[in-house]
């Protein structure tokens, strides 16, 4: 931690690595497309020339939306995680904390149950219940006169358990031949079968939410000192905290809508980044954005290339997340 930091160089490295990984993901896969052809397909599509053939379909219609979604979800969840950790003064929380993931998960499961999986019909309830779970958590945390950030964390966990139970209920009544596998598979998280239509639906939410959080990043330092400190430093923390929670929730719900519950990313990535950039959110958020994108991209690459049967990404993030978390827990500054 005592090393002199050069954040400009760090950003440049992160950005270049992310772009390189994205490009690699386009031509490496079960169906290999030569790099030169990837470039010509991309250039052709962007300039409006019709490019046809299997390669074009693989690169443009299958891989590109998947890669973009992967980066967006990884970056969004990591920024949301860093924001949650900052405002709750707790490096051990993540987007799951407010029960958002489980609320959204329940909504989508309901959608599958009633419509047998029409894409739009899973998204609307996922988003609605994601937001509902935050509102619930927020309301529960305020039933006592004296509130602290910890009461909100606790309330979020309670809401998470509640929606988890409801998800089990949906699974119980779901049709075991078609709906149950669909729900189970979707809940485990996957980037397979991403289309540009899906992408265009959630991209504004994730990109917009992340952009505003990035703009607010220095203010997060003040909120991370606690309410009384913020107040004495000249900042009224109440409304700002609610705004940041809402933005991080929008990002999380949008991610869950298209890719299921992808856990661990929002918890681990900010902690790893903090070891490089220090605690200042001015640097922590941009670094989390790049690292989160890369992390999911690598895991998704493993998911679709290394194994014959595609492993759901949620399982991989958990498997990779646990050892990483233990490492971070041992070497990071907190909890000494």
């Amino acid at each position: 931690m005592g090393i002199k930091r050069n954040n400009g160089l760090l950003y440049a490295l992160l950005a270049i690595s992310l772009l390189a990984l994205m490009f690699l993901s386009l031509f490496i896969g079960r169906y290999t497309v030569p790099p030169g052809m990837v470039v010509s397909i991309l250039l052709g599509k962007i300039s409006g020339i019709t490019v046809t053939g299997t390669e074009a379909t693989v690169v443009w219609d299958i891989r590109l939306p998947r890669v973009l979604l992967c980066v967006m979800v990884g970056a969004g969840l990591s920024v949301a995680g860093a924001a949650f950790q900052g405002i709750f003064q707790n490096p051990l929380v993540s987007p799951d904390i407010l029960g958002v993931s489980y609320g959204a998960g329940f909504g989508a499961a309901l959608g599958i149950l009633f419509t047998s999986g029409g894409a739009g019909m899973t998204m609307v309830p996922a988003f609605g219940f994601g937001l509902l779970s935050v509102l619930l958590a927020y309301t529960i945390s305020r039933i006592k006169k004296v509130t602290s950030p910890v009461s909100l964390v606790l309330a979020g966990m309670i809401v998470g358990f509640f929606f988890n139970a409801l998800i089990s209920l949906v699974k119980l009544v779901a049709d075991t031949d078609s709906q149950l596998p669909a729900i189970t598979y979707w809940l485990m998280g996957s980037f397979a079968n991403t289309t540009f239509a899906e992408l265009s639906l959630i991209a504004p939410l994730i990109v917009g939410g992340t952009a505003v959080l990035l703009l607010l990043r220095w203010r997060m330092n003040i909120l991370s000192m606690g309410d009384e400190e913020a107040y004495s430093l000249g900042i009224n923390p109440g409304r700002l905290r609610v705004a940041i929670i809402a933005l991080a929730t929008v990002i999380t719900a949008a991610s869950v809508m298209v890719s299921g519950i992808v856990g661990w990313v929002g918890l681990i990535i900010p902690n790893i980044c903090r070891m490089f950039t220090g605690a200042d959110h001015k640097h922590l958020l941009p670094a989390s954005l790049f690292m989160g994108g890369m992390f999911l991209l690598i895991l998704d690459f493993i998911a679709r290339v290394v194994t014959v049967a595609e492993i759901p990404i949620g399982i991989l993030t958990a498997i990779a997340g646990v050892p990483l978390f233990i490492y971070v827990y041992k070497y990071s500054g907190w909890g000494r």
Partner: protein
Amino acid sequence: MEVEVRNGHFGYFRQEDILTDISFRLPSAQILTILGQNGIGKTTLLKCLLGILPWQKGRTLIDSEEMNYKKHINRIGYVPQAYRFVFPYSVEETVMMGLAGKIGAFSLPTGKDKEQVRSVLAEMGIAHLQKRLCSQLSGGQLQLVFMARGLVKNPELMILDEPESHLDYKNQILVLKMLERLTRVRGISCIINTHHPDHALRISDVTLMQGRNASGEATSLFGPTADIITEDNIKRFFEVESKIITIERSDHTKFNTLVVTL
């Protein structure tokens, strides 16, 4: 900045009043010390002053007008008792937070803000700590960082919660001298909580003494420091016998101090 409190009352629960009928007036560029035993409500009083806690009765006047959080907070530097943060912020990052009221919600600190942080660190004599993490500092260094954070916005009033309580002798004197200089040279008014009557005697102009009477009710005294810190009052408020003595330094200047004789 002139600060006046008129008949301030506060209690966390309805039955028990922590602060009853607090009144004082601190003229510009003077030092007020608030004295009292641990747990008597000194920190609560500072929070009421800042507007973090609301007076249940009474009011605060700043330069003869009603205290208004939005209007006045950026002219007041608050220094809490030093504590360790959850996140490992560096000294520079921590002190920068003192400028929060001047940096917009969607903005980042500018080069000018960084310059201001650097100059306050130099003024406090801790420029060499700029890049260090607060988690690696000693208690005395951390206290100076907190003071720098309160001072960086060039306040007209500094409110400090027991700034010298966890320091060794050398650092205690360092902090007291720093406060005297801020007041005499830069004209900043200071309000300082302390449980050391001898420190109050050394630097303050006026003193508010908080305590409880025989029936357990909160009570307080206010006046010029020399009139308030007397052997009688120390016995009443601190429950110890003491003697106030005048000491002559080697350069023939004199000062009063208090020695506990029991």
